[in-house]
């Protein structure tokens, strides 16, 4: 049944091409909700074996080359399908007011979502790669057509980075396919590849996927891409697309090439820790609110990679939970910055925002941002805390030094988050008021008062806040499903 998430989303995308404009956003919303409902139904249905990568659909596709249309499900992929659904619904809600080329906008958006469902559910290496590459071009158009600041540069940079990663992945996949003689992920997971092959194929594959997860130093597409993208675009980028890379790195690179992983995992840990600290430090110096959030995404994804590098159940489960958590929190932060603030004030400069007294003007936005910041900083009670603490427990067993450095990094995260929160909403800065008036006057001469937060925005924000709070208070809900699936993975043994 879970396979229908993919079909429904693509059918919705095609419907958008043929049906008139008046239906566009409703089609998108109905599609996203339908897919999410299916996921939830699967989630609460007990007769699915989530501890193993269980086949859902398997149809011969190109028998001559051993390709199958093969979908499967376990706790890890279900968690990510769930966050995809949440991010998709809220992204549609936060683009309720897209005016130009509406059908096209939602078409590209649904292609990204549908491709992501496909990646998370694929059990055939070729199929996984197909969906993985399928996501790239819609992303480009979503940003290049509908984006804002420096959009063509940001879109092209993001796309070229993705393609660069894709080329590495292509090479790695061919190497696995030719040496293993199969494309079935479950079959491949039982094959012992030659150590020599693993030693070069693993870094090629892992790095190729990790480009999309924002691994340092190949992360620079993320901040510019996030800033250039329209609100829904950044929400999807942070919420889903960065997870594609991390998920595929786990499912393909680490699970299929365990010896290569053991050889290289210390390097992954180093890159992850550098990424966490470096991105947080850079975020501290940004003037544009979206850049702050963009770098915070890189920092949070560093935790995911650190979790992978620990190679124990705690660390990897925490990493998967962090993917869910950051998907929700990242989407929420971008929603506030891009839709609630930028659409009204037409500026994201922290100095200009400081003079607008936004906590009075937009109380709901301020409330949402406070919740999102708290979750992002890792305050207990939110999902960010549950995930990061699990990762750090795991890391303590493998790399105690990394935990110390990361701890310092977390202080930086708190510092830049609080700085952005204070500057954007709670500063009373008389000097900045002139700047604010100027920004409002040049870009938005007619609007003297900021329009209130609309219902779709409240619904979208509510959904995301509920998700982060629910998982924060009761992480067992997801961890119980993630952990058995992680325990079944080969690189732990």
């Amino acid at each position, binding site marked *: 049944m879970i396979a229908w998430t993919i079909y429904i989303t693509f059918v919705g995308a095609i419907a958008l091409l043929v049906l008139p404009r008046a239906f566009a956003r409703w089609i998108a919303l109905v599609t996203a909700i339908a897919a999410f409902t299916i996921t939830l139904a699967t989630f609460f249905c007990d007769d699915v074996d989530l501890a193993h990568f269980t086949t859902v659909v398997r149809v011969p596709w*190109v028998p001559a080359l051993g390709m199958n249309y093969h979908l499967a499900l376990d706790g890890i992929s279900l968690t990510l399908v769930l966050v995809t659904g949440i991010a998709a619904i809220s992204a549609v809600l936060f683009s309720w007011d897209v005016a130009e080329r509406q059908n096209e906008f939602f078409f590209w958006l649904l292609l990204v979502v549908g491709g992501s469902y496909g990646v998370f559910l694929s059990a055939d290496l070729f199929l996984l790669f*197909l969906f993985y*590459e*399928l996501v790239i*071009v819609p992303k480009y158009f979503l940003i290049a057509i509908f984006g804002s600041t420096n959009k063509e540069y940001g879109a*092209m940079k993001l*796309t*070229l980075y993705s393609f660069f990663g894709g080329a590495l992945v292509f*090479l790695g996949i061919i190497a696995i396919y*030719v040496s293993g003689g199969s494309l079935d992920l479950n079959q491949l997971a039982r094959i012992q590849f030659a150590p020599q092959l693993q030693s070069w194929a693993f870094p090629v594959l892992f790095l190729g996927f990790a480009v999309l997860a924002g691994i340092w130093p190949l992360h620079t597409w993320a901040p510019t891409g996030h800033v250039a993208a329209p609100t829904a675009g950044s929400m999807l980028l942070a919420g889903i697309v960065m997870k594609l890379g991390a998920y595929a790195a786990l499912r393909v690179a680490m699970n299929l090439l365990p010896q290569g992983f053991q050889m290289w995992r210390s390097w992954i840990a180093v890159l992850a820790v550098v990424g966490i600290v470096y991105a947080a430090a850079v975020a501290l110096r940004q003037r544009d609110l979206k850049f702050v959030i963009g770098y915070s995404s890189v920092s949070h994804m560093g935790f995911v990679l650190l979790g992978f590098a620990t190679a124990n159940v705690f660390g990897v489960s925490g990493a998967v939970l962090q993917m869910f958590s950051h998907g929700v929190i990242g989407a929420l932060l971008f929603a506030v910055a891009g839709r609630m603030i930028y659409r009204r004030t037409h500026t994201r400069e922290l100095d200009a925002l400081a003079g607008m007294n936004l906590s009075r003007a937009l109380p709901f936005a301020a409330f949402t941002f406070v919740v999102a910041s708290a979750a992002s900083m890792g305050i207990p009670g939110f999902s960010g805390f549950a995930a990061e603490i699990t990762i750090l427990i795991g890391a303590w067993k493998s790399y105690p030094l990394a935990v110390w450095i990361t701890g310092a990094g977390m202080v930086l995260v708190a510092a830049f988050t609080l700085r952005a929160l204070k500057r954007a909403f709670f500063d009373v800065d008389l000097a900045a008021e002139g700047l604010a008036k100027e920004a409002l006057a040049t870009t938005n001469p007619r609007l003297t008062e900021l329009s209130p937060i609309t219902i779709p925005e409240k619904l979208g924000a509510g959904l995301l806040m509920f998700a982060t709070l629910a998982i924060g208070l009761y992480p067992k809900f997801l961890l119980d499903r993630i952990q058995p699936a992680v325990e079944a993975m080969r690189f732990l043994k």
Partner: protein
Amino acid sequence: MSYLELLKLAAPEAIVVVTALAVLTIGLASTRASMLGPIVAMLGIVIAIGAVLMLPQHANLFGGMLVISPLNALFKIICLVLALVTVPLASSEKSLPNPGEYIAVLLLGAVGLMLLVGSEELLMIFIGLELLGLSLYVMAAFDKSDVRSAEAGLKYFLFGSTASAFTLFGISFIYGMSGTTALAAIGQKLAAGPVQPLLAVGIVMTLVGFAFKIAAAPFHLWAPDAYQGAPVPSAAFIASASKVASFVVLGKIVLVGFAPVHGSADWHAMVAGWSPVLAVLAALSILLGNFVALAQTNVRRLLAYSAVAHGGYTLLGIIAGGRDGFSATLFYTSIYAITLVGAFAVVGVVRRESGGDDLQNFAGLAARSPFLAGSMSIFFLSLAGLPPLAGFFGKFYLFSAAFRAGGNHGLLWLVAIALFGSFVSLYYYLIVLKIIFVDKSSDSVAGHSPLATRHIFGEAVIAVLAAAVLFLGIMPQTLAARILASLP
């Protein structure tokens, strides 16, 4: 062997020749451009396809001069289909002075293709090459009022005739060494003795002629001018059908005729033979084609340089050799041809509507004609090798075949170059799509929005080709299995 039997086996070729003569007569009789000529031509091609299907499974005439096998029949059909879709393009092209003559020459070119594909003997292959080449020279120079068309024709002719001379010279060497011109017999003779220097010269010279046909660097210099200057249908035909036939024949020559002197292109164990020669051509084509394409501002020139690069990718399968490699090459070249005809068809429409085919003529095409923009993105994304389009599967098939070949991943270097090249190529394909979807049309072409005149024939061809590219991407099995089954 009676003449009647010979005629039966050569029926498809004969039908196309008769059709060409009929179209020529119709063109003479009617002064105005009428639809009768193209319709008769298409009808003739369809009947010829039927005749190919009626042929017996296997036949071999005159020591390989005319061979009928599943593989040859399949590629005769593919070549005929490519000619079939080129005819409507020609009929919607208003700049051609004598459509009847043009279509007749096109059909004669198709006969050349069929002879080329259907022969396993060097002399007959050479005759096919010449018949095809002469038709294409005429087609390239057909627009007498356009100086660029004349330039294209002349360049193509000069380069082409020199290359043919090389090929003929090479063939004479091979004949001298082996005493036969039939490919299978050559293969047996070569296997018996050691490789002599004279034979190596013969092989290299023969390959030069084909490298010219498939526009592999450094024999690609004619391609940009021919693609840009020739009338659009001619360029489409040169870039598609002629390439498919050349790859089929090249594969047969090296894999059957020169099989014993395969050599090895493995990076850790290079052995002299034809495969290192082709490997160098492939690597050079991929790098040069992709990097030079980055700097182009004309879409047809861009397609020409990308064609050089695609020629390089396609060679990978032949270098890999074997059933797997050859079928990957054949699959890739077929889908590439379909894609390129489609891309040229869109270019033709845009050229008619906006008066040019530079990049800025495509600006804002998505707003002027969503259909053309959508089709163009399908063609370009397939060329770029993105899913779910045919080019994605084609590249996977090709590169995995190359990776598998040789001991200990010997062709890894070539696969890495090809992957790097296709990464570079994404940039310029994406730039074209960016101009189509993101940019606003400039003032000079804005007057035409939305596209004023429509041509049902041409649009139908574009729609069918786009659907085919999408279908072959989702269900590659339909073509790949046929090719695999037809290979011995």
